[in-house]
């Protein structure tokens, strides 16, 4: 009995402190901002969602977290054989294996993050129908959870550079900027496509195809330098162009950091994220009904 009494006492103080809380439920009209306070209040959920995805993804698998290495490693091998050795694609002077791995590092993250992000709401449809929490948590936690894989792939990059005895350039200090643009872009695309995918399952079916198209629209297997100079800024509207080229420049030092490409990418990525958040917010209210 004593525990219950103690509990009631603490409730009483809790109730007193929250007494001016008021929530109004009514149909929302027009553009709405996100309730950042609420997102902060649910930060523990965000952490657990990320952690759950990491834990569940590699549960009951023999290689476990090793899958985070296998994907970029084998892509690198295939690309090196086909594009590096057979097609002899120009790699700006670096070994093609490193050249493609430096691009695969952000690209693998990006493609996995958006694929997972898009799935997040649809696969958790049951949760959407049964409980309220800020819906934005789902795609964003999926994007954040993939950072673990990114970190592991980065370790692999270091190992490969030691194997190739290729020292990193001083430009590596610019890498965090490229990572930020990468995160903004992945979040923006995820938020957009997630909100669409809840209502239109076409997105799910088209996802693989879209990722593949995007890969060839980004300088993963080739260098951005093969694009004619006058089209290059237009090309950089795809934010991953700036990200991938900056990764290469920062890690391998083959070129100087392409600030123009990264700048354009940052702009278009930010626009993508802001419009995505607005779109997500406007669709959020119907998720539970259509999911």
């Amino acid at each position, binding site marked *: 009995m004593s525990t219950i009494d103690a*509990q*009631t006492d603490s409730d009483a103080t809790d109730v007193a402190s929250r007494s001016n809380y008021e929530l109004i439920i009514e149909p929302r009209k027009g553009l709405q901002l996100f309730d950042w306070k609420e997102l902060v209040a649910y930060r523990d959920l965000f952490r657990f969602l990320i952690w759950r995805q990491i834990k*569940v993804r590699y549960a009951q698998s023999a290689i476990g977290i090793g899958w985070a290495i296998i994907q970029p490693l084998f892509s690198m091998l295939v690309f090196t054989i086909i594009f590096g050795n057979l097609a002899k694609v120009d790699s700006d002077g670096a070994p093609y294996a490193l050249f493609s791995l430096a691009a695969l590092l952000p690209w693998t993250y990006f493609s996995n993050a958006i694929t997972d992000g898009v799935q997040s709401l649809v696969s958790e449809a049951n949760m959407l129908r049964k409980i309220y929490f800020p819906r934005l948590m789902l795609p964003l936690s999926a994007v954040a959870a993939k950072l673990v894989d990114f970190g592991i792939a980065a370790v692999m990059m270091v190992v490969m550079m030691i194997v190739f005895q290729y020292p990193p350039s001083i430009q590596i200090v610019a890498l965090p900027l490229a990572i930020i643009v990468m995160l903004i872009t992945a979040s923006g695309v995820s938020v957009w496509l997630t909100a669409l995918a809840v209502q239109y399952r076409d997105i799910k079916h088209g996802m693989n195809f879209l990722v593949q198209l995007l890969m060839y629209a980004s300088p993963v297997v080739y260098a951005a330098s093969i694009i004619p100079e006058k089209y290059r800024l237009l090309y950089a509207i795809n934010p991953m162009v700036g990200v991938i080229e900056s990764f290469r420049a920062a890690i391998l030092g083959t070129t100087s950091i392409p600030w123009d490409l990264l700048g354009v990418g940052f702009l278009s990525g930010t626009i993508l994220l802001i419009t995505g958040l607005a779109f997500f917010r406007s669709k959020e209210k119907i998720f539970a009904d*259509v999911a």
Partner: protein
Amino acid sequence: MSPIISVENLSKAYRIGAKEEVPDTLVGAAKGILKAPFKNLSRLRGLDTSASSDEGSGSESDILWALKDVSFEVNEGDVVGIIGRNGAGKSTLLKVLSRITEPTSGRAVIRGRVSSLLEVGTGFHPELTGRENVYMNGTILGMTKKEIDRKFDEIVDFSEIEKFLDTPAKRYSSGMQVRLAFAVAAHLDPEILIVDEVLAVGDLEFQKKCLGKMKRVSRSGRTVLFVSHNIPMIEQLCTRGIALKNGGISAVGTVPEALADYCVSSVSSRYSTESFNETSDQIRGIDLRDALGNSVSSIQCGDSLKIIVDYRLNSIVEKHQCCIEVNDSLDRKLFTIGSFLSGEVNRGESCSKVVGTLPSVDLAPGTYTMKVRIGTLARNVGECTVADHISFEVKTADYYGGLRAPDSFRGPMLARSSWVFSE
């Protein structure tokens, strides 16, 4: 002081699937295939009811109002039972109040922190261990990690699965999963708790434990909205009742008031189609009279009751009989009375009234329904039988002539008895 929840004209519309056109020519079919993506697109867009109602598009016929102009107020500390038949709008109301879905119009103001429990174990993942699921489920329900840390031992104690805490949930029996999930939910500390029919889980022992926990929660001064079809549970837990019917409120008030409305409406809609209409045979009226001959709808325990059935059988039915089943509010048959039991065969062909007398109504306080049937009462299909029903209320009285008044929790039936103690 302003009410803790006030709901004003809350409505929620859902779009239901409109009928597909079926092409009857090859050209029509080909056209249909070409047009399909566009049609699908507009159909998918139509899922968003809020947008379409703004534009005024979409016909009225494929819109279903799950809630229509619902208004009520809940004061702090009220434990409100929400009852109604399937599809009456109970779950939609809870979903709107817990912000899962947005109302189409109207508004609700909630002055307190809400936790809702529409399902046990939301967010449970089979690959995670019991311990991990407690944290996952708890944070989804709106607790912080700190809060869960503090209550963790209590939760585990309540769930009785201490031994399996580090086993993945997929190896749990379904009962164990539910127990753990409910244990988490039971330790929520909101000001307002919204609970859908989720307590009917686990074995009997655990159900009792849940009920006990719910009782403690409702006595602690918290506001609770509670949907259930389990009427005894509502009677035990709730201080107020709301009955919903076809998306609207049909009764608000005390629990017996709401229950009475629910029982009447649930019975009438179920049996109205049963009455035999082809030959305009019908029961024209059922009248209940007390000992003084007054027409009544409620009587006291132990009173006598006369049942007068006014009927019409156009097709000449020889040997027709009257049969009355008395059911409780959960539609459980308690007993049957009737002319056919005592053998008073009616040979007259022009009879139109039958009077039955119950010398003592030995029923506990509550709402009951009499299902009246007149006819040959044979089980063969096509035999002429008319049926109708009437609900009545039994109020408590000094039935035992002693210290205690009859109470429904000792069972629906009363019996007189005498006692002698000896050495």
